[in-house]
């Protein structure tokens, strides 16, 4: 049974640390607090699920942790580096080298083939053997034969597998997944979940998973609940 605490297991070193994160946005009704004073520590290699009702602020928290967005207050340390003190390009660099993503709506680039989509992060990071590495990762997700297909020629499950390959191909320190099975039917979703955890186990990546899916959450070492912007 996974634990439900904001503390990382004491034995392992922490890879990601959020301190008093708050995110507020302007809205027609005034200042809106989406994430409220969230502190969280995640150990290297750990898998953690963030669950909670829709609109709780899970995606926002994920964006803050990954440095996609800046908090209104608090800070995020990724492998000891304070993301909130880096500029946009600095954070992009960190993402290129240390972070992988999987999204609910796959987010493959429609004009690129499956293989090219997987190569993309390697190319952005200046990887020398992008083609071979991408091909190998595509093989791992069972789509080696579909490398030349465009996203629109693939089913939802296949697209998400390509996305998984793209996320793991750079061997990231942390993988962020926002409802990776949310757009898929139950069977396909289960298969994708299975693949995600297999790959994660192989690469010893730290996994931060936002999900509605109880079964998926249950496979994580730890589950945190989020409601109205706060962890409980």
């Amino acid at each position, binding site marked *: 049974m996974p634990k439900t605490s904001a503390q990382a297991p004491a034995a392992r070193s922490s890879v990601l640390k959020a301190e008093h994160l708050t995110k507020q946005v302007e809205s027609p009704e005034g200042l809106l607090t989406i994430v409220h004073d969230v502190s969280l520590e995640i150990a290297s290699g750990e898998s953690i699920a963030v669950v909670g009702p829709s609109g709780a602020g899970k995606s926002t928290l994920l*964006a803050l942790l990954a440095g996609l967005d800046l908090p209104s207050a608090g800070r995020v340390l990724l492998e000891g580096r304070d993301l909130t003190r880096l500029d946009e390009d600095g954070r992009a660099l960190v993402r290129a080298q240390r972070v992988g993503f999987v999204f609910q709506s796959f987010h493959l680039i429609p004009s690129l083939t499956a293989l090219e989509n997987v190569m993309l992060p390697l190319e952005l990071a200046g990887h020398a053997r992008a083609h071979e590495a991408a091909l190998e990762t595509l093989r791992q997700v069972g789509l080696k034969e579909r490398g030349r297909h465009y996203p629109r020629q693939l089913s939802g499950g296949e697209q998400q597998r390509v996305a998984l390959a793209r996320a793991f191909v750079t061997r990231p320190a942390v993988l962020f997944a926002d409802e990776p099975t949310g757009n898929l039917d139950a069977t396909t979703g289960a298969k994708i979940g299975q693949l995600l955890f297999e790959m994660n186990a192989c690469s010893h990546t730290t996994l931060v998973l936002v999900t509605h899916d109880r079964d998926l959450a249950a496979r994580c070492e730890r589950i945190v609940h989020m409601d109205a912007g706060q962890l409980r």
Partner: protein
Amino acid sequence: MRAALLSMRMLSREWRSGELGVLLLALTIAVASLTGVAFLASRISAAVAMQATHVLAADIRLESPQPIDAADLVAARRAGLRTARAASLLSVVFEGDRGQLADIDAVTAGYPLRGEVTVADRPFAKGRPAPGIPPPGEVWPDSRLLATIGAHVGSRLSIGAAEFRVGRVLISRPDAGGTFRGLVPNLLMNAVDLPRTALIQPGSRVTYAALFAGAPGRVAAFKHWLAAHARPAERLRDISSTTPQIKSAVDRAGRFLSLASLAAVLLCATAVAMSARRYVERHLDTVALLKTLGATRRFTAWLATLQLLAVALLATVVGSALGYLTQAWLVYALRGVLASRVPPPASLAPAGMGCLAAVALLTGFALPPLLQLSRVPAIRVLRRDIGPPRPLMLLAFGPAAAVVALLIYWVVPDWRLFLGFAAGLAAFIALLTLTGALLVMAAGRLRAHTGVAWRYGIARLSRRKADSIVQIIAFGTGIMALLLLGILRNDLNGDWRRSLPADLPNYFFVNIPPQKRDAFVAYLHARGAKTSRMMLLMRGRLTGIDGRPVAQMRFADHRGEQFANREQNLTWSATIGAGNRVVAGRWWSPADYGQPLVSISTEFEKWLGLRIGDRLTFDIAGETLTVRVASIRKVKWDSFRPNFFIVFAPGPLDKVAGTYLTSAYLAPGPAESLAELARRFPSVSIFDIDDLLADVRSMLDKAVLAVQSVFVFTLIAGLTVLLAAVQSSRDERRYESAILRTLGASRRTVLKGVLAEFAAIGVLAGLIAAAGASVAAYFLTTRVLDLPYAFSPWACVTGLVGGGLVVAASGWLATRAVVRQPPLATLRADI
């Protein structure tokens, strides 16, 4: 470097997916129309210049009753020009005791510098190009001369004190138009033989001419030098002085071409802007994702810039090739229509211009949105509603405005016109924006009161505010440009057709004695000729302005000096001639008759710096006459009717003796009636301008052709705008119509909604475009093309109906394919 490499790889993938297609198309057409027009314009003006120089047998020609100073010819050769001399006089040519008065032209080697002399071995045969000029001892009489005196090739003719062998028959020579053809036959001889004839005695009437030709730049420089050094009796003739008709027609055609290519480029700019906008919309997610995956902002900006550069490069190469080929094909396809040869393009400069335009268009219209694209935050991968931050107005529209301003200034390099033009365009776009905003507002109010189809269409209008306004601007500008060019083109062609009716006078009669005036007209009328008004012609010299002798005055324009130093043709008239328009002062009424008043043309006004009320003193046949400037006229010199710089009021000239001149149209017929006319009125000089008219007609054909073909380029550019607009709305429509149809709307309902939306946009855009085009046409016809303006209601109707129909059709096209797809396919494809 890594970024560059990767960008290029990304680019090649974008190519494959056809994302850059419309952008490339718009740009290619812009380049093609600019280069095509530029090539065509340069070729046609070269053709015109060539044709005109034939009339002179040279690029410039200096004529004088005295021998031309040899120093002028030396100076010309030193300036890199080719030269030749000619002397022309009237003398009787004998074969035995049969004689005939002939116009004898003695020329030096090199003659003619432009055009060609054709000869044959028998009279009235078909000519072939002559090898140079007659060798010494030989003359080339024309067919009529030989026929009249009964001579042939090999006969011996005596001219003055010398005897010559007839070497060939002269069939044609380029500068024959200036002589008294139809009356006096022609004979060409070598100038070295002229002294032997002993025809040149003190007091004999000889016209000496120096001929110059060479590269255009050198000719222009030398002409300047000559004008400054010309002696009082010398007359400098060039293209403009020979055929002002051709020159002004071609000038206008040139200005129209520039306007048309400007319109084409502006249309393409609209298309470029719209396709760039679409590109940005479609790539927001991609760029956000790239950033999520670790791309820096510099990288994404690089990506955009390199992609644009590649597009520009391709568009330039393909566009200039296309432009070149199109104009080459046009000239080739119409070679039958064009009476004379159109020379090949002199340089590849137009291609360079096309390249510059492509880069300018991209920088102004595509780069700002693309750079904006690189600012989209990574967070968009999680929240789709987040786009790039709002740009500064200055950065978003500044470059586009600057590029448009530059282009306009390039086409109309005159500050006042330029400002008018730019202000007009800005006002027009502001009006369109305002109308767009009002439409959007009205649509919001209206949506509750309409059926479902209309509500869907109209709701879109008010929901996608910015989009609707952009579309109105794009369609409005496009329709306006096309309507405007349509109107101008009609004005231009109409004017040309009007100025060259079939019964245009083809003969000018000068030197009609006053006492024979009525008999002369009666004679012509009896032979079915249509005559224009008889005008008194006398020669006089301007001697003073406001009491100061002109000899001591300096004029800003060198043409002023020429005018002041030369005898002018003077006349009087009670009525203002057709093609004359008073621009200052007023034309006299019967009450003014007998007053010392004069009316001058705008050229005279400008060159001599005159104003209404100035007192001009003339010396006319020894009489001194002082008159006041009562009016200034703008004269349409290309009307082919007798026109004068200086016209007196009825009265003041009554005491002075003069002769009359008139022009008439004589149907082609037997030469005898002209010969009889010459016998009955021996003092009358007859000028046959049939050949000149043929020249002008052929030139105008070319100009019309150029105008039509440029219009075609512009139409294509207009279609590109349409395509861009269709494309830009298709993506979103695909999704919306799928949802609507899933909810149970029939295809017809969806299509009707789209038609409603687009028809509303089209009718509004068309309405404003028609108004804008009418106003712009007024200014352009009167200020730039110098033509009278006539409001054309068809433009408004076309704008309104055409706008509504075309725009609705484009909306239908955009949606038809989308609606055909089953909704599920669409929804699934939306990733």
